């Protein structure tokens, strides 16, 4: 048996495989649900309800998708240029803390119209800087960035933890380690009252559109893709590899930092060390599900959020261990990866 690359992808297949993948993931999860003693088919129904069954669940799903889309874009941009940025989590936290700092210490009194863009930029720049360090190490010392970006996640989170324990600590939080809050004017407007859904979703989708355009239409998009696919060939064709990688790192780190800023400005207002349930890592899987396509990232982010929010809600309404939500997300991600593979390859004897 071997796999042969498809030169053409039948539309029916592209539609059918993800559905099969979801079905497979749910089937496996069904076994676990049954073992936990809950009715399986009702559980499936509850997942759907949990994700979209009410105004609350729909807005929650979209709220959770927002950071996933942004970190997914961050990973997609980098991976396309073969820059293995596994550091989204650290960049997310650094972006968040920088936005929180800027929104509480620097521009807290400024009007929203100026303050919000400023905070977003600050967050993005912080993410950029954190990714430029491993990139510099790679360009200067040829240190593999998979490991350095991964390690910097821990450094970044500890750094944030230190800041919110010391200089940025909110004195009104009764000693709890959390950053001071962004002023009201620095918070992203809500898209719907009485929900957590905020303007960040619009930002994420807009950025996905911009990125899709940049990658498919611009000279920079073509160059960064070339640099990723074959650096030697790209260099021969005059692509400035270093510059391109720096630009890609800025976009990728910037997006991950922005994700952190958006999350803190849209949802919480201040930073704690459990701001992110692994958004930086999930973003990588989201990007891969989307085959590194920016518009696909939007869908993949929504899909991942749907699975999690739905399954999480299901676990509460059926009273089974809430860890099932992560199990279902993991299963659907894995089976989706396999499904994406089979839209690209066929089996031959």
């Amino acid at each position, binding site marked *: 048996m071997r796999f042969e690359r498809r030169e053409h992808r039948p539309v029916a297949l592209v539609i059918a495989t993800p559905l099969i993948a979801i079905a497979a993931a749910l089937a496996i999860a069904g076994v676990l649900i049954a073992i936990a003693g809950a009715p399986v088919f009702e559980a499936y129904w509850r997942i759907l309800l949990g994700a979209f069954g009410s105004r609350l669940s729909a807005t929650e799903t979209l709220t959770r998708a927002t950071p996933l889309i942004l970190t997914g874009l961050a990973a997609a941009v980098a991976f396309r240029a073969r820059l293995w940025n596994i550091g989204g989590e650290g960049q997310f936290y650094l972006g968040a803390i920088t936005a929180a700092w800027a929104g509480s210490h620097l521009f807290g009194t400024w009007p929203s119209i100026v303050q919000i863009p400023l905070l977003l930029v600050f967050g993005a720049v912080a993410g950029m800087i954190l990714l430029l360090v491993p990139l510099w190490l790679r360009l200067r010392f040829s240190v593999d960035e998979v490991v350095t970006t991964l390690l910097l996640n821990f450094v970044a989170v500890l750094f944030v933890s230190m800041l919110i324990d010391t200089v940025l600590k909110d004195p009104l939080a009764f000693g709890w380690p959390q950053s001071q809050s962004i002023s009201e004017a620095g918070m992203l407007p809500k898209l719907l009252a009485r929900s957590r859904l905020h303007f960040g979703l619009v930002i994420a989708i807009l950025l996905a559109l911009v990125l899709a355009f940049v990658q498919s239409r611009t*000279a920079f998009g073509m160059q960064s893709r*070339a640099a990723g*696919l074959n650096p030697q060939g790209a260099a021969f064709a005059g692509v400035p590899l270093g510059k391109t990688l720096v630009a890609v790192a800025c976009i990728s780190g910037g997006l991950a930092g922005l994700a952190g800023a958006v999350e803190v400005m849209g949802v919480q207002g201040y930073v704690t060390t459990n701001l992110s349930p692994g958004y930086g890592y999930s973003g990588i899987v989201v990007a891969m599900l989307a085959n590194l396509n920016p518009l696909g990232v939007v869908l993949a982010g929504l899909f991942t959020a749907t699975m999690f929010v739905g399954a999480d809600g299901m676990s509460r309404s059926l009273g089974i261990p809430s860890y099932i939500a992560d199990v279902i997300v993991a299963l659907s991600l894995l089976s989706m990866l396999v499904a994406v593979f089979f839209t690209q390859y066929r089996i031959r004897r």
Partner: protein
Amino acid sequence: MNKPVLEIIGVSKRFGTTLANDDISLSLAKGEIVALLGENGAGKTTLMNILFGHYVPDSGRVLIDGEELPQGKPRAAIRAGIGMVHQHFALAPNLTVIENVTTGTESLWSLRSRRAEERIKLLAISQRFGLKIDPDARLGDLSVGEQQRVEILKALYNEARILVLDEPTAVLTQLEAERLFATLKDMAAQGLSLIFISHKLDEVMSASDRVVVLRGGRHVAERRASETSKSELAELMVGRTVTRPVREPSSPGELVLEAAAVTVRSAGVDRLKAIDFQLRSGEVLGIIGVSGNGQAELAQLLSGTTSKTSGDLLLFGTAVASLSVADVVSAGVGRIPDDRNKEGAIGEMAIWENVILERLASFSRRGLVDRKRAVAFTQKIIDQFDVRGGTPTTRIRLLSGGNMQKLILGRNLIDRPRILLAAQPARGLDEGAVAAVHERLLDARRQGTAVLLISEDLDEVMALADRIQAIVGGRLSPPIAAEEASSRKLGLMMAGEWEKEVAHAV
């Protein structure tokens, strides 16, 4: 001859829509040397990969000494006495020579490697067949020729009785190739049977007993080497008569490129040492030499991917300090890289993207790529240069070597460059494709382009170049006129012996 040691019977293999092997049969006797000949993409490598078990055929069988060989198992092939020297070397650069040779030769479960015995055996083989090698050298530090030797030693170490060599001379110099064939003949005399693949008809004629010709995946002809001619083979291969074009006399124009005492240093080593050359429009300057003597750096220097350390470089009469790829391209320099897969193309990108990548600036406005114009431009190249096997939007990976080379030529020649840098332009191409490439180069020369041809192939250089310089250890000999060149003289130059021989040259 006696009973065949190897029989390939009715082998077919399909890749997607390509029928790479179509019912091919072949046999080989003990002590016989068979040459396998065919255009690029004729299916030679595929057939050999099936023989060695890398691929499973869709149908057909392989018999060794009359016994059927299990399919798709390289291990079984090795056990049956087949050794293979791959077209793209199958070596691990970070391991030593002896490690490369002995991997997989002992039971994987034995508790220790018998390194000492292995070394003795390797050295014995190396002595017996005259293939000298340092067993403890790191493979990545060896020259291409030495790596080739390791590939052969691997096969011999496994006690191969049938040795398959896939384009063994593609990366060797004439001298190395001659030495290799002497060794091969010696091996055959010692009872080994050999199949070798080559595009070089001279080699085929002189080294083989029998020639098998493949075309479009089919076995089309078989001749005894003593009963055929180069032109017949070329015709059988391509399906029509092929003649290599010859250079007509011309009068070179103005000086377009001049190097005076140019040195290139990288990683602390002078890769080019105070080289001098002059290039005029309408002429071909051939740079000949054994690979690894600085050709790569010379090509990089003129391609804009490396800068000189010292010396003067004059482009159209103006001194240039350092050149970027963009400078070079916009100055009207066409560049044909010596490795088309690594440098010349980005396999996963579309043909049109590959065509415009090096001149993105002129195909984009305010950062946006003008795709329509780019595709039209690409189509023009495809039509004019007879590139077959793809439309502008197919991935370039899917083109065969010859067609990819035609495309690379096309993207460089279509705008009539003033200078064309051609590094190993016909390497690995079949006879028909070689003729086509040579024709294009001479055509460019006729149009007034100055061609700098870097090549290891004496025939090629003698056929195309007006003047020839040799490159040895990063130094460049003074030029000699093509009329004065002979294989012997060029051979001496490539060995670095020009000081006394050609001191009075042009």
